[in-house]
Each structure stands twice: as structure tokens, then as C-alpha cells.
């Protein structure tokens, strides 16, 4: 213990002359708020000269703040849209720099008593667009399917819509809830239901294995499968920055986030660390 403290002190003393006192503001995705705050907390413990301030509001809000230059870094759970890039270029004269900072996999949940163990992407598309409405059509009991979805302001909703529903609309009957935790809570209570959300969540419900199409193998939403991208519903989480600001503390912070140390934090809060080729 004593040595550890001494070592930290030494590290701080050595690092002190290099690190400048500064403040970094981070804004954006609600999915990433907890992750961002954890990063900030661990980082500030290590480099007390730098103050990192993290707020949420949604990926879109973060992008707007990046354009208005009211934030240094923008968290986003989806890739930036061309319209947003254009707004940034008008201000920065350059494209914003994109950093992949973590991975997330989306799981499909059903009630623990449900006999079904695997599902394919085309089947998911038909279920969530309202074409398949009975578990019988999937080889389950003769019961209607109750759909749980997320609110349309969430990045998870957009990702699922784009990659699983191929851009089609969710069935009108899908109930929309405010967070992955409420989806899980509802699915855990209802034998007939199906929902989706972050793969790291979810005790009390059954995670289905997912097949890319009807003939491919069913893959479990586990860290190994998400990292090698064999699991079909995974995504990156991003941080965007104005290239002019990407120096000194900001650059150091971004580098630290993508280092092994920063990536260890990712696992603590329930996402998946980056594959080695994206790390710094």
C-alpha cells in the first residue's frame, strides 16, 4: 500500500511538468455518460491538473455543441451524419476528427421461460416490423409476441432500426421505454415479450444467440464474439473533436482513453474494449 502511494506520488511529480493545467468539456450521448464520467474520474485521479467535465443530452446535442464550440469533445453512440459534418466544416474549415473509443453489442432478450434460444436477423426484422406476431411462427408456443423498443431519441433505437430493420419502421404496437434497464425489467416480467438493448446489461432475462441469416451459425453476445465482430449486432462508440483543439491535454486525454488503461475502464462500466488495432 505504502509503496503504491509513493509510486503514484512519484508518477504525479514526474508527470507534473509535462501536463498543463486545463479543462476539458465533454458532451453528448446519454449511453456514454456513465462511461465518460468514469473515464474522467480515473483520469483526474491520475492527472489532477486536468479537469474533465462530462455531460449528456444525447448524441445530437453533443454534435450541436461541437459545432457551436461550446464543448471540446462530443460523445456519440452513432457515426456522425453528413449534415453535421457540413456544419462542422463551416466552422472548423476541416472535418472533425473521429476516434473509436469503445464497442457495444446489442442483445435480444426474451423471458427466461421462453423455449427459443436463437434467432436470425431476418426473423428479427420481421418481428419488430410487425410481420411475425406469434411465437408459433418461430417454433415457440402459440402466443402473441409483445414487443419492447426504445424511445426514438436513443442511439440504440437508431442503430437497431438501421442494422436490424434495414431502415424500416418499427411496428406501431411496439411499446417504447426510456432505457435498456426498463426494457429488461419489463421483459423479465412478461413471458410473451421480446426486447433489445446493450449486451452488457441483463440479469433475469435470456439473451438469444443471433444468426446473421438463416444458414449461418448462431453466435452468443459474448465479449470474444463482439470483439472479433462475428456477433452480428455490434457497434462502435465514438468521440469527435475539432482538429484544431486536438493537442496538449485534449490529445493526451484521447490517447489515454484508447490506451489499455482507459480500455480497462470500459469493461468496468459494461461496454466492450476496442480490438487491438484501434488502440493507441
Amino acid at each position, binding site marked *: 500500500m505504502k509503496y503504491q502511494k509513493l509510486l503514484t506520488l512519484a508518477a504525479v511529480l514526474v508527470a507534473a511538468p509535462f501536463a498543463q493545467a486545463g479543462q476539458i468539456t465533454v458532451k453528448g450521448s446519454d449511453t456514454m455518460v456513465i462511461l465518460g464520467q468514469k473515464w474522467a474520474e480515473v483520469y483526474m485521479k491520475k492527472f489532477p491538473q486536468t479537469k474533465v467535465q462530462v455531460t449528456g443530452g444525447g448524441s445530437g446535442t453533443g454534435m450541436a455543441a461541437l459545432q457551436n464550440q461550446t464543448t471540446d469533445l462530443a460523445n456519440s453512440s452513432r457515426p456522425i451524419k453528413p449534415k453535421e459534418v*457540413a456544419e462542422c466544416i463551416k466552422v472548423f474549415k476541416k472535418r472533425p476528427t473521429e476516434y473509436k473509443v469503445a464497442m457495444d453489442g446489442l442483445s435480444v432478450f426474451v423471458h427466461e421461460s421462453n423455449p427459443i434460444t436463437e434467432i436470425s436477423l431476418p426473423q428479427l426484422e420481421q418481428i419488430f416490423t410487425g410481420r411475425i406476431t406469434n411465437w408459433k411462427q418461430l417454433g415457440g408456443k402459440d402466443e402473441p409476441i*409483445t414487443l419492447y423498443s426504445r424511445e*426514438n431519441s436513443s442511439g440504440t433505437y437508431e442503430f437497431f432500426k438501421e442494422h436490424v430493420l434495414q*431502415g424500416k419502421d418499427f411496428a*406501431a*404496437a411496439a411499446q*417504447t421505454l426510456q432505457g435498456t434497464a426498463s426494457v429488461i425489467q419489463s421483459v423479465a416480467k412478461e413471458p410473451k415479450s421480446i426486447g433489445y438493448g446493450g449486451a452488457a446489461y441483463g440479469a433475469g432475462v435470456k439473451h438469444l444467440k443471433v444468426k446473421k441469416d438463416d444458414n449461418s451459425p448462431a453466435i452468443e453476445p459474448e465479449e470474444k464474439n463482439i470483439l472479433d465482430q462475428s456477433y452480428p449486432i455490434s457497434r462502435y462508440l465514438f468521440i469527435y473533436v475539432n482538429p484544431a483543439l486536438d493537442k496538449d491535454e485534449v490529445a493526451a486525454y484521447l490517447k489515454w482513453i484508447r490506451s489499455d488503461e482507459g480500455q480497462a475502464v470500459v469493461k468496468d462500466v459494461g461496454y466492450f474494449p476496442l480490438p487491438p488495432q484501434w488502440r493507441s
Partner: protein
Amino acid sequence: MTPPDTTPPAAFEWRSIQRGRRLRPLEWLVERGIFAVSLSAIVMVFLIFLFVAREALPILFGRMDSSVAQEQMTVEEMKALPEAEQARLVDMSLRDFREEDPETIELLLEVKAEEMQTIPDDPDIGANTVSWRYLVFPHQWTGYDQPEYIWQPVSQIHKYNIVPLFIGSLKATLVALLFAVPFSLGAAIYVSQLAAPRTRELLKPVIEMLAGIPSVVLGFFALIVMASVLQDFFGYQSRLNALVAGLALGIAIIPVVFSIAEDALTSVPRSYTQAALALGSSKWQAAWRVVLPAAIPGVFAAVVLGFGRAIGETMIVLMASGNASILSWDPLDSVRTVTATIAAELAETVFGGHHYRMLFLLGTLLFAVTFVANLVADVVIHRLKKRLEGLA
């Protein structure tokens, strides 16, 4: 000789009150102050309405276009266009465009070309979905089997049909009124007419204490407890639905309806009851056949206030209604109300974009609905009062 008659000071003061002597400066100030405060309340309501309506104006007058149709062009093709066309493509004024350096323009055009690639291949891309035709009438969108009322604002084609939302709001509100009005009226009649004084002293504050429950706590209770209990009992399909949300809303409006109805019933002169009792009617008959009809305008006002509170309530419906925008009158289906839609979606919209303005339009319409409801209620109350006075 007696001196000329001078009024003694005491009498003078007494008479001056009778005649309304000019106010003392302080009193005048206080009176003006109170007047200013009440006037500012009116002005405030008006200003809030103006602000909300202003954001919705482009849609109201059909001056907004949400169509996503665009030509496909390469950067070279765009560069060959005249300057004004290029400026329009990158969404800049011609002057800004001319002052911008060529590298930035090049970048912007590149991004524009990328954007053009993302446009879906869909026959509906040219539809201006914020025009009234799409807002209130059903349309057969690509991929649907029949014309439908669809609210799907985050989508390749932004679908903004407001009908399911308003029906959802009305449905939840109706369930709430059907549940709350009989209960609170019954309680009001009992407390004001039948209960012994000690029971009344206990019951009245306890019911009014319901008003102190924060709506988020009620919503939480409905989401976790009521939803499961009701589903186990009735065994229906969706756990969160208009019934659950309506019952929770009902609990929220019971104290409002109760306390106003109770006031109205209590203010009916005692002589009415006494006369009825003297003629040999029972206590119950006197309350039901004499006092209640005499208090009808006040009771009606209570119900209207309950309606206003229920249709404007947000947190409870956001948590307990399931938020699925289905068009149906079945109370066992999930509903998405206007208020919950605004609350859930506003944070993620592009400032000044069509989704943002659409939500403000919803707010304006909701405001209009409650305003009209209050107005109609006021007229009805006046008529009822006149009729009652005419009969008396």
C-alpha cells in the same frame, strides 16, 4: 352664538369610508401592484402561447418542407453548376459562399455528395410529410399494406401523423375521468353532506393529501406495481396501456376534482337541506336530489379542471402508458400521448428542424384543446347558473 358647525373628526372618518374617500397613497400603490400582478399573469400566458406558436408557424402555414428527395451528383458535377446553385447545395448565402476559401467549399461539396448517397430508394422521398395532408389523413407508405396513421419521426421518411397521439391523449384522459369523477364526486357528497363532523375533519385533508404525491412517484408506482397487478388480474396482452396510465392519472386528478366539487356542495345554502329534511326527505335524498343539482355548475367546473390536468399531465403517461403510437380506442392497447411525445423527443431534435417544429405544433394544438375545453365549460356553467337561478 355658537361657532359654525364643524363635523367631529370621528364622524368625518366614518362618513369618508362610506363615500369612498380618495385612497391613501400606500393603499393606492398596493392596489396598483395587485392589479399589475394579475395583469402580468394574463400577459405571461399570452406570451408563452405566442412563443410556442411562433416556433410552429412554418408548419401551420405550410411553409416547411421535409421532403428528402435530392438529385444524385458527383463533386465534379456540382462544381460545374453556377455559384448560386452551389451555395444553395451547401446551404450558405451567396455572399458567404464567395468569401469562403476553395478548400472548404471542396470539402463541403464532398460531404454533400456523401449525403446524397444516403438517400433511400423509396417512392415516398418526395413527400412533404409536414403538410396537413400527411398530418391528419392516413397514407399508404412504402412497405405498408394499407393507408395508415403513422407517427415515426425518426425514420428515413419522417412520418408525422398526429391523429394517433391525440386519440392516445383523449383515451388516457377519458379512462382517468371515468375512474376519478365517480370516486371524487361520491367522496365530495359524502364529506360535505353525510359525514359526521369528526369524519369530515379526517377525510378531507387525507384526500387532499393525494395532491401532494409527486407525479413521477405515481408514475413509478403505476409502472412497477399497478401494471403487474392489473395484468395478472385481467390477463391482457400489453403490460403498459391506457388503462394503467388512466388509472394512475385518475389518482392524480382525484384531489383536484374532489376539493372543488366539495367546495361547490358546501356552498349550497344550509336552508335547502333543512327545507328538504323538513318536508320528510332522508339525508341521502336531500343530498342527491336537492344539493347536488343546486351545485351542478361548480361540480361541472371541477370535472373540467380535472380534464385539463389529466390531458396535460406528462410524467405519469410517459412512464406507464407504453408509448406505442397505435390508433385504436381499445383501453387495453398501449398509447402514446401528445405530452409524452413532446417530453421524450424534444431533447434529440435538430434546433429549428421539422421534427422540432412539429413538437411545438403539438404543444400549440394541445394548448388550443385545453383552452377550448375551458371556454366551452365556462359557457355551459354560465347557462346552468342562469337556469338554476331562473328556477329558484
